[in-house]
């Protein structure tokens, strides 16, 4: 095993160009477990965790979150248009894990259970990749292609996620067997971007990738068309139930050690109803 500890992003990109496909070590919460358990013996390992170029967090205008930003740093941000980001960050692992784990790590691993990913999907985020060949910007929907599969080339590093501020009507919910230290059985992020008359719902841990619930989104948009995009939405019980059904129907869950497909669909319906009720009343 050869360890490279570059001092700059350029140095990391050069090391990766020399050894395409080398493993990248960010917060270590995934890769170190693989190494500790002998499931992975990387030939080349590049430590990217301390790189200052990956640590930017900019919320002036377009939002940019560097790949090396930890969940603890996201939690320290103010709410408003970061409400769902904060709710998501608080569900990640424990203080120890939140101090280590990064958004870039979630993107690199691309697990369907990665907590940040439904938020990035619902925010229509762009994934920024860099290599010595240059920079590529890929919509999240095209970035993640399957369980632990993504569009990152062997010589590329995820440097940031970017998105347009969608306003404060947003929330993230996650279900697991306890509050802390839990991998999602199912998770959901709902955004009502009032300024653009757009509703977006993304589901985690309920399919091979992060799924968007398109029919549920259109149903909610029609609801808000009627009540007015500048007005709080008073969600009737029937409408909330229908929204929940449509979200559950969009899932492609499997039975696994964390939960059954049937339970995942059930809990998605519950989370969707709660999310719509919670977010409907939020007007910028």
């Amino acid at each position: 095993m050869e360890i490279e500890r570059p001092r700059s992003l350029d140095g990391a990109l050069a090391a990766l160009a020399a050894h395409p496909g080398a493993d990248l070590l960010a917060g270590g919460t995934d890769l170190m477990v693989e190494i500790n358990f002998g499931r992975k013996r990387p030939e080349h390992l590049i430590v990217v965790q301390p790189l200052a170029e990956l640590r930017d967090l900019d919320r002036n205008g377009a939002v940019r979150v560097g790949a090396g930003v930890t969940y603890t740093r996201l939690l320290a941000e103010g709410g408003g248009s970061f409400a769902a980001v904060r709710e998501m960050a608080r569900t990640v692992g424990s203080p120890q894990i939140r101090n280590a784990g990064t958004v870039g790590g979630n993107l690199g691993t691309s697990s369907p259970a990665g907590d940040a990913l439904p938020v990035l999907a619902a925010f229509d985020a762009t994934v920024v990749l860099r290599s010595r060949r240059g920079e590529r910007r890929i919509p999240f929907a095209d970035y993640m292609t399957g369980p632990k599969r993504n569009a990152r080339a062997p010589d590329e590093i995820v440097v940031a996620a970017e998105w347009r501020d969608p306003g404060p009507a947003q929330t993230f919910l996650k279900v697991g067997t306890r509050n802390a230290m839990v991998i999602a059985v199912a998770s959901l992020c709902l955004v009502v971007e009032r300024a653009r008359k757009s509703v977006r719902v993304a589901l985690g841990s309920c399919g091979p990738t992060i799924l968007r619930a398109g029919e549920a989104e259109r149903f909610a948009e029609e609801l808000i068309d009627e009540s007015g995009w500048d007005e709080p939405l008073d969600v009737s019980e029937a409408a909330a139930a229908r929204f929940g059904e449509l979200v559950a129907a969009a899932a492609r869950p499997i039975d696994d050690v964390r939960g059954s497909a049937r339970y995942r669909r059930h809990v998605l319906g519950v989370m969707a109803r709660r999310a719509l009720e919670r977010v409907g009343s939020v007007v910028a």
Partner: protein
Amino acid sequence: MRIHLTVNGLEREADVWEGSSLLTALREDLGLPGSKNACEQGECGSCSVLLDDQLLCSCLVLAAAAEGHRIRTVEDLGKDERLHPVQRAFVDAGAVQCGFCTPGFIVASYALLRDNPEPSEAEIREALSGNLCRCTGYGKIIEAVRRASREMYR
């Protein structure tokens, strides 16, 4: 590979396997067995240390990547003859049963009280949510953190 670590204020050197975790380096190479090795996947918190003052699981830190950072382990918080108030409180509250998880809880409680001198019970529970204890049922651990808070900040 040869690595140079700053542990508990001292410059230390160790010969480690490239893939070695900081936890293994501390326990096996540097004679600091206070940080415990249980799950090796960041779930139990018994290997908690401070790296540049941040609470981390040392099993998830690559030893070679810890070069250039300040590492503090439970060994640095108190001595046998002069316990840290957090350690004293754990003894007085009866928060130690088998003792295996205790060093991790001590470090995590220390980090909590450093940042939040008078935490509520909910804040204590959240701050210690990354540390598992299979003996005590946590009640006395929470009581110990309250005692330490009173002792340190009253």
